[in-house]
């Protein structure tokens, strides 16, 4: 396997493990990062606020974890699209 393939696999594994970043703070009763408070913006409404599906939060940690993984995958796909687009303009053939 090429290095880039292995690195993509690593990113995918991180995406699947990402709910740890939700579950650990939950069990230690930790809130948001300092300063990342609840002052919401009326300028822009994010479609998946806080990596969650709106209204699904009350369905428990399992559902939130699922939404977290789906958010990670959507984010990664969005990033790939943006980089490919930018890459078309910025890269040169070698």
């Amino acid at each position, binding site marked *: 396997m090429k290095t880039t393939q292995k690195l993509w696999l690593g990113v995918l594994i991180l995406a699947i493990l990402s709910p740890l970043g939700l579950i650990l703070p939950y069990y230690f009763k930790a809130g948001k990062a300092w300063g990342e408070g609840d002052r919401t913006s009326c300028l822009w409404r994010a479609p998946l606020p*806080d990596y969650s599906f709106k209204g699904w939060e009350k369905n428990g940690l399992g559902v939130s974890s699922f939404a977290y993984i789906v958010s990670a995958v959507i984010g990664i796909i969005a990033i790939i699209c943006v980089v490919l687009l930018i890459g078309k303009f910025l890269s040169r053939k070698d």
Partner: protein
Amino acid sequence: MHIPDGYLSPQTGGLFYVVMLPIWIIASKIVKKNLKIRQVPLLAIGAAFSFVIMMFNVPIPGGSTGHATGAVLVAILLGPWAACIAITIALVIQALLFGDGGIIALGANCFNMAFLEVFAGYYVYRIISARSSAASIRRIWASFFAGYVGLNLAAVSTAIMFGVQPLLFKTTDGQALYCPYGLNVAVPIMVGEHLLIFGWVEAIVTALVIKYLQKQDPDLLNI
């Protein structure tokens, strides 16, 4: 570390868009000159890695959380200018799709994580690495301390942005319009938790991946 909207005055937010604009332009020009087409996947991997590692919130005593950013790692692998673009992309996606970090604050967040952390981390890595070979243990330590210094500088800068708000922007009767915490609160808390915990998380993440790549593909470390 991601400043939400409402905590910075529009003036502060605007200022950092103005500061970042020439940096983004120079970064695009330099990347356009140097980026080979086979490096595009690496740019995507760097941005995706940074995006996903920032989802790993680490709880700390006192009820707060924080996370690594992967920005120094991406800087070591892609160079600081390409890393600046990669981290900017991750921050834009986080702000637009997930509301993680504000829109007005996006320039400021990019200044802290896509510029300050990236460049500080990159040069700390280069200075400590000196002329050591790509497979040397010295490189692992260099990446470790680069991660620590990079994230902490970003935390200092973020804390100052928060802390100056109540000094500069208040109503006529002295009420803070934006972030209510002054430098005397923001700096010790933000910098303290990063010096004690999150800086080390960034250091370990950076060093572990560099150690893995030394075995896997040391050519990647010869930029």
